[in-house]
């Protein structure tokens, strides 16, 4: 079942500011493409180290980078996102942050990005699945991108040594036919296996969990897994061809592998994989809420809570409420009730429900319909 976002009728952002955001997005995206192309040219020593067999990967990556910047810029131009982004950047560079929340960003990097402990709270299997996919994809990219851009290359040094060149500079050499060299040459095979474990668990969850079976969408949830599986399997098949099959089908497999990887890169800015670049915004949000609003995210953080206007239960800080009201106002919505009752956002969720209930029963009296 297709699920899509719909915009509110009369959503407040004017057409002019939307057009400005689009222009900015185009400019930043074009700058990214030019900069990256320049870095490839310079980093590969005027393309002398560039492997033309890998041109598809390089072009796909450059396109994906431009498209990601385009979409990210438009995403930041949304009122709630822009507010968090601006305040998050201000918060990061504030003295209060460095003085009081020195460890907040490193801790958040660990819990939200590298170890993703918050997924562990959702379910262990889900965390294991996501860690495998995350590290499988990230490590593969970290190996593939410098290779396809011609930033690193290997040369044979007779009789049996291999040398690593980075940006045209000579670096370490290591002997062939050792465990170390075997691990280095098969690094992408290891990441492919890690990825396959994650994708396998994901397929198992998606084919057995009744809730997921109904709410998942093929293009959004299943297709990315199919692509990742195809990338990992064709990648492993390349090794199998050269090690076990005497190079049979190598050309066909490498072309197929390139085709699926490029498809994945082209889809990166548009589908589920956009959350790879979107998700780190959690750290910005955490920082903003902790530094600007004293919300407690990690042990030791200072609390600066507000209180519900009706029951006194703890609410986020007054600034959170004020910022939320400003965002709603940007969207053309105001929930100011009356001078006596204040605004709806000053109440806790339970009191909002009870206020509505009291109004309802005031109208209904003792009627039974």
């Amino acid at each position, binding site marked *: 079942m297709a699920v899509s976002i719909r915009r*509110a009728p009369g959503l407040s952002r004017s057409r002019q500011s939307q057009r400005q955001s689009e222009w900015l997005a185009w400019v930043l995206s074009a700058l990214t493409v030019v900069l990256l192309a320049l870095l490839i040219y310079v980093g590969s020593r005027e393309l002398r180290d560039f492997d033309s067999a890998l041109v598809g990967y390089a072009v796909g990556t450059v396109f994906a980078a431009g498209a990601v910047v385009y979409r990210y810029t438009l995403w930041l131009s949304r009122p709630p*996102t822009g507010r968090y982004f601006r305040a998050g950047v201000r918060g990061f560079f504030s003295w209060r942050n460095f003085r009081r929340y020195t460890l907040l960003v490193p801790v958040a990097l660990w819990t939200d990005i590298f170890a993703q402990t918050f997924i562990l709270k959702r379910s262990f299997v889900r965390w294991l699945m996501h860690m495998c996919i995350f590290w499988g994809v990230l490590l593969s990219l970290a190996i593939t991108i410098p290779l396809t851009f011609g930033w690193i290359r290997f040369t044979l040094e007779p009789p049996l040594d291999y040398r690593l060149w980075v940006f045209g500079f000579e670096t370490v050499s290591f002997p062939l036919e050792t465990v170390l060299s075997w691990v280095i040459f098969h690094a992408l095979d290891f990441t492919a296996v890690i990825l396959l474990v994650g994708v396998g668990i994901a397929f198992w969850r998606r084919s057995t969990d009744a809730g997921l079976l109904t*709410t998942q969408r093929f293009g959004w949830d299943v297709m990315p897994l199919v692509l990742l599986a195809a990338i990992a399997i064709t990648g492993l098949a390349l090794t199998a061809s050269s090690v076990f099959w005497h190079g049979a089908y190598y050309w066909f497999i490498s072309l197929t592998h390139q085709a699926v990887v490029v498809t994945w890169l082209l889809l990166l800015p548009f589908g589920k994989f956009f959350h790879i670049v979107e998700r780190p915004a959690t750290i910005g949000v955490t920082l903003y809420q902790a530094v600007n609003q004293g919300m407690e995210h990690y042990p030791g953080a200072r609390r600066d809570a507000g209180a519900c206007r009706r029951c006194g239960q703890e609410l986020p800080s007054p600034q959170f409420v004020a910022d939320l009201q400003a965002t709603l106002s940007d*969207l053309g*919505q105001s929930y100011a009730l009356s001078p006596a009752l204040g605004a709806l956002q000053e109440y806790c*969720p339970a009191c909002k429900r*009870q206020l509505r209930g009291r*109004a309802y029963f005031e109208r209904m009296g003792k009627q039974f319909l």
Partner: protein
Amino acid sequence: MEIKTLFVDATRCIGCRACEAGCRECDSHKGESMVMVDFVDRGFSVATQPTVCMHCEDPVAPCAQVCPAQAILISPEGVVQQADPSRCIGCQNCVFACPFGVPKFDVEARLMKKCNLCYDRTVQGLQPWCAQACPTDALWYGTFEEFAARRNGSPVSCTGFGEMDVHTRVYQVMPAGTEKLDLVALLSEAAEGRPVREEAWVL
């Protein structure tokens, strides 16, 4: 296409919380209820009210609009889904922006959860768990026409919050001729006519 939706008639609610128990059976948030049964005026009345997501249509889903990560999606049928776990960045904007006090937030899992009208059931033509379990039809599922043919009262889809009117997919059942549930006007009336609380008499 006939649109089926929920009709909430709080006057029929007996506070049995069968809806909450039914809701915990939903496959998309196993073991956790997204329906909330509240005492409306504890100490003065035993009246209770069930709250489900009202699936706001105009303005469409304020929770989704204030979401910085576009994590809350809306199905083509107008059902506002709970946050996409891959996108929710845990800012809680939705929790405090919702005019009806619906979304719940799991702090440790950094995830917003809310009623999605039992999407797994309703897309198959089944009624949501809460309506299935409700013994008094305080929560009733069907089309507007079916409701009009079978039940008394007028389904109202507009709730007024001061200057802001919110039109919802879920109806509240009110006396015939009522156009909207005007929160401010009714709460002002309630404040004026409220009896003085008597101290408990203890021997």
